């Protein structure tokens, strides 16, 4: 595929920096070549010389003086080389992507920054943008300043709805066709749905028929519930080379380290790498070394063990939340069981829009959730949904929260009855 047509003018103007190419020469160059190139600090001046991280399972990751220099020095823009190798192995093992040799892996400062680079590579003002709805707010915040024409695609308990995607595409102007589809196929934020494999295959075909790239945002990949086998990623179906896949360690290892990675067609990932080079230069070396050491000590087996444990943990949390919801919200709200992720997506019955209920009265009602409107592409239409997170709350607090919510909703309905219908 030639990807130039997907790029905006800013992306097309990005060129490799000769300096970075010259830095690259230093690896593997003969020892007697004197490099006077890098504007890098001298490692002798680094004030931290060693480090030690104890893991919960009792093992210790030692950061030797040599490793500490790696941690504290500029690294190559694409990522810490041992980590890139490990991430490639993980990605290849889990997804066996077709056309593996045509793909690159780029470390990103969290998967969000990868998404931003991909979106900013393609967005033009007024462009039609296809997103599943409800949509992750982090993507709306990147896209909205470009004044897009949003084409939201419906999703239900089984994830993205292919017929809605078809309808959306049929409705758009031939002069302003979308370039990509954005989706969170596993444990969607906020709906919690996991798009079934059948639907993924159908969606892939539709994207193929319409020349669309697929931005597969999959930070909850490991958080799929109910004993099902891991979902079939879009990357694993990608015969054409139209998928940019965004992975993250944030939900399973650490959010604060800011380590994610993007896998995709070489031409696109190279462009993103240029953007990365002229923004963060490199992701935090120490974070990458720590993740790399962790993966080295665990191996693929240890990673599988850990992610299985994490999955069970969040599944238990989900179940506790569902119990609390059943107890207090039956007849008050509707919801489908989240098949993955960290969120319960509640539809409030009898309340037209939840924004004011939460933002103005939630504090007093002793419960804060996210009003569904935040995840909608239409800034005006009322939205009766709420997103409740179950990741970091204890069971008693969940019950208290659901109880408070039921009372808040009750008061809101009374308020609605008293006020004349607005907008």
């Amino acid at each position, binding site marked *: 595929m030639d990807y130039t047509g997907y790029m905006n003018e800013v992306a097309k103007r990005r060129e490799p920096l000769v300096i970075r190419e*010259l830095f690259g020469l230093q690896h593997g160059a003969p020892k007697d070549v004197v490099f006077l190139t890098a504007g890098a*600090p001298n490692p002798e001046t680094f004030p931290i010389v060693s480090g*030690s991280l104890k893991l919960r399972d009792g093992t210790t990751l030692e950061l030797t003086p040599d490793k500490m220099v790696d941690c504290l020095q500029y690294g190559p823009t694409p990522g810490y080389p041992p980590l890139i190798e490990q991430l490639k192995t993980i990605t290849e093992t889990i997804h066996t992507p077709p056309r593996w040799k045509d793909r690159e892996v780029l470390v990103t400062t969290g998967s969000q920054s990868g998404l931003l680079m991909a979106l900013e590579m393609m967005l033009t003002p007024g462009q039609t943008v296809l997103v599943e709805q409800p949509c992750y707010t982090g993507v709306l915040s990147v896209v909205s300043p470009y004044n897009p024409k949003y084409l939201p695609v419906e999703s239900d308990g089984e994830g993205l709805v292919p017929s809605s995607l078809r309808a959306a595409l049929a409705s758009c102007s031939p002069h302003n066709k979308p370039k990509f589809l954005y989706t969170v196929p596993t444990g969607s934020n906020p709906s919690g749905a996991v798009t079934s494999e059948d639907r993924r295959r159908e969606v892939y075909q539709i994207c193929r028929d319409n020349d669309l790239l697929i931005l597969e945002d999959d930070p909850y990949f490991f958080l799929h519930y109910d004993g099902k086998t891991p979902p079939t990623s879009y990357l694993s179906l990608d015969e054409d080379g139209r998928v940019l896949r965004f992975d993250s360690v944030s939900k399973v290892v650490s959010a604060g380290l800011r380590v994610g990675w993007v896998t995709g067609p070489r031409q696109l990932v190279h462009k993103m790498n240029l953007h990365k080079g002229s923004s963060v230069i490199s992701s935090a*070396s120490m974070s990458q070394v720590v993740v790399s050491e962790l993966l080295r000590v665990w191996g693929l087996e240890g990673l599988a063990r850990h992610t299985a444990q994490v999955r069970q943990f969040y599944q238990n949390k989900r179940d506790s939340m569902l119990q609390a919801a059943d107890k207090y919200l039956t007849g008050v709200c509707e919801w489908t069981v989240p098949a993955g992720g960290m969120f319960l997506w509640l539809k409030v019955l009898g309340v037209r829009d939840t924004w004011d209920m939460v933002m103005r009265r939630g504090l007093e009602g002793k419960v804060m959730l996210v009003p569904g409107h935040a995840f909608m592409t239409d800034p005006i239409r009322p939205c009766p949904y709420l997103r409740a997170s179950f990741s970091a709350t204890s069971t008693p607090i969940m019950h208290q929260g659901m109880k408070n919510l039921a009372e808040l909703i009750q008061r809101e309905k009374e308020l609605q009855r008293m006020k004349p219908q607005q907008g």
Partner: protein
Amino acid sequence: MNYSKYLSKVAARRKPSGISDMRKYLVNPSPSLVWLGSGMPNPTQFPFREVTVGLNDGEVLHLSQDMLSSGLQYGPTPGYAPLVTQLKAMVERHHSPPRWSESNLLVTVGAQDGVSKAFEMLLDPGDYVVISDPCYSDALCMLASLAPQYLAIENDDEGMVPANLRAALKLAANSEEKRMPKALYLVPNASNPTGTTMGEVRRREIYAIAQEYDLIILEDDPYYFLTYEEEQNIPPSFLSLDIDGRVLRFDSFSKIVSAGLRVAFVTGPAPLLAVMELHLQSSVICGPMFSQVLVSELLREWGEEGFSRHTAKLRIFYKNQRDAMLLAASTHLTGLCEWTVPKGGIFLWLKVVGVKDTGPMIIERGITKNVILIPGKEFVVDSSKPNQFMRAAFSCVTPEQMMKGMENLASLIREEIALQNNQA
């Protein structure tokens, strides 16, 4: 000042998400408030239990559970709160910014990310940007993608020349386009690549011109602590002169503590920083918190005194490197190159008198002579023009390597001159 007129079209449309508004409720939450709003993963699932780091002075820093939790979790976009407090104190101490109460500070993932977000905030395609000639190559790279019009102001041995700046701005103002320059970018201390430091009088002149033409000044200052003067003799920063609120100042720990931690910060008018914060939020969400916690702990361990001691040592270290480099240069390059003595930083800017264009000499033939540096054309807007300059970094090489390098370079230059003569 009305800042909205400086914003690019995209920047003007950035809005806070409803969710971020909610975070203010977390500041002093009532204990009975049930918070189900955040998308944060559960920290009990992060596999790390304890972290210690060893310092070069023998001390060991043990991260408390709280600090470790902060380091491993999403944090606020502006930065790890204790670090932000420390950095604000540092800025106030070093610069006493005149409009401090109307300013703000954001931690960025390296200074370059701050600068790139600032450029994207201010420039639409075709907007003028004032830069010096030569200019930091990465800044040119960022700008190239934005397709601005350049006012590249020729330097002398103090940096941007005010008379040249005035002349260029006057020309732009009188052009038919009626597009006024909005932004002026400079590296005032130990500039990359020239190593020049701008004196106080010159800075005041430049500031006055910026006032006259209503420019935002982007002061990129990663070598602030690497000027070889005593700390008290460093010329006042543009931030310290900023009576209008037109300066965005970019500080960095990359050259003084660690480049790989990616911790830096931008200080400037609150309205401009608010726009940058929105962009940062939608790009990295927050910087690497682990890095920020480490830097914060290091600063706390050191205190003001320890930090001053550390930067004093750095100055001595890099000054010695510079002196070794100058010795190597005068030993081997006298008669072949010209240079001024850098008063700070890590670069030597060499002019090769007898060579028309250092580009092919270095790129095509440098490796055969076992020396690689950066051709001067990487630091100008039009890299197709022949350029006689080269940048040599002396931060990471030993005196022996410097001597060898300069010897190799001399050989390379002589051969290049011979090549030129044969072709003539």
